[in-house]
């Protein structure tokens, strides 16, 4: 970006832009790290959470217990969980991913459970009437119907993961949190502002992207939804 170009931007933005321009490589590297931690967590956490959510539909007592435990896991402060895992998993991203998997469980399990149990009795009944086994009903009716709700849980989890992963930088997991902690340490407010904006944007983009998929699924399921711009665009493109 040329200096002349920068001159056009209001004065108070220019130091931030300058920081971005000067550190673009570093920022990009940290962003990728952040995304990788998030992706690794989601890839492990979602299958576990969904399976647990499906399993507990078979037993009410197990459902209460599992949901309670997942809720308790969320009350452990992230920083503390990281710290406690360091002696067992070493420093770096492992204790962070482990903690984040725990944190993702409540939204994913809860939404899977609610989504599956919330499928209308009549629809399930119809499945029974057609001679479907319990497994077939689950696979062909309940899961597809519950998919948007499950995805909403995943979305919820991803937002938490992106946010908490930033704290993970404190125990050497990398990611955008590193800029935030360095900024606080060095009293560099420009660094803090830029890093927090990028982390927040990452969370927002993930949230918006998954929400769009969720809406498309709802439309496929025949629900009436107020469409967001992105959904309309995709629908048009088809």
């Amino acid at each position, binding site marked *: 970006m040329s200096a002349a170009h920068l001159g056009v931007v209001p004065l108070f933005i220019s130091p931030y832009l300058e920081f971005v321009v000067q550190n673009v490589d570093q920022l990009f590297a940290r962003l990728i790290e952040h995304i990788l931690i998030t992706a690794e967590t989601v890839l492990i956490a979602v299958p576990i959470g969904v399976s647990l959510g499906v399993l507990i539909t078979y037993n009410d007592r197990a459902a209460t217990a599992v949901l309670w435990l997942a809720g308790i896991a969320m*009350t*452990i402060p992230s*920083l503390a969980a990281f*710290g*406690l895992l*360091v002696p067992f998993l070493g420093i770096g991203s492992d204790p962070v991913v482990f903690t984040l998997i725990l944190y993702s469980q409540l939204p994913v399990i809860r939404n899977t459970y609610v989504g599956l149990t919330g499928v209308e009795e009549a629809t399930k009944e119809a499945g029974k009437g057609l001679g479907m086994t319990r497994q077939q009903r689950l696979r062909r009716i309940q899961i597809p119907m519950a998919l948007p709700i499950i995805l909403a849980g995943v979305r919820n989890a991803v937002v938490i993961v992106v946010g908490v992963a930033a704290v993970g930088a404190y125990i050497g997991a990398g990611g955008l949190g590193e800029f935030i902690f360095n900024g*606080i340490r060095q009293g560099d407010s420009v660094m803090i502002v830029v890093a*927090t904006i990028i982390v927040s944007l990452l969370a927002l983009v993930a949230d918006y992207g998954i929400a769009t998929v969720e809406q498309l699924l709802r439309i496929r399921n025949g629900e009436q939804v107020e469409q967001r711009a992105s959904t309309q665009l995709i629908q048009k493109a088809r």
Partner: protein
Amino acid sequence: MAGVISTSLSGIRYLLDNLPEFWQLLAEHLVLVVASEIIAISIAVPLGVIAARHEKLKSPILSVGNVAQTVPPLAIIALMFPILGLGFLPSFVALFIYALLPVLVNTITGLESVDEGTIDAAKGMGMTQNERLTRIRFPLALPIIFAGIRTSTVINVGTAYLAFFIGGGGLGAWVISGINLFNMPQVFAGAISGAVLAISLDLLLAAVESRLGNSGPASAQVAA
């Protein structure tokens, strides 16, 4: 497993050996959480009530609220530093902002979710707008508003640990210096007390809720 148990035991021992400091940190933590939460509630609930009444205010407040909730807690804490510097005030403001959102969003959605037929009946029976709000809408929305308050409080206890990075004190002190010094008993002592605090506050609020709202049979309130 043996490692986990021995860490736990040594953590509890650390806590007992440093009781005066523990009370000090716990008090700091509680003051941060309780003060920010109470002020957040006392602003978010009335604001939610006003927003729910005015179509034009409602959707912008809801979308800003929902977007702001995706901003990571560390980001809000860190952003306070360039604006307000270090210490109690920036920590308090960050926690306040973060606590405000779930309560605000849940107040609006709670008031909105009250069945139209119920409101229609109340209107047809000659309730004024205020009577409908205080006798019907608000009590019916209370479980959802309380869910927001409970979520917000639990998150607040966890976020308050991060306040130590900007000089806000609290239990974060033990956890962070424990990590720095690789003092696991100290980390454990700091961590477990916060988890217990979060759970106790949640249970306390649940008790307050069941006292406050005579909102029907308990069974009907079990939300998934």
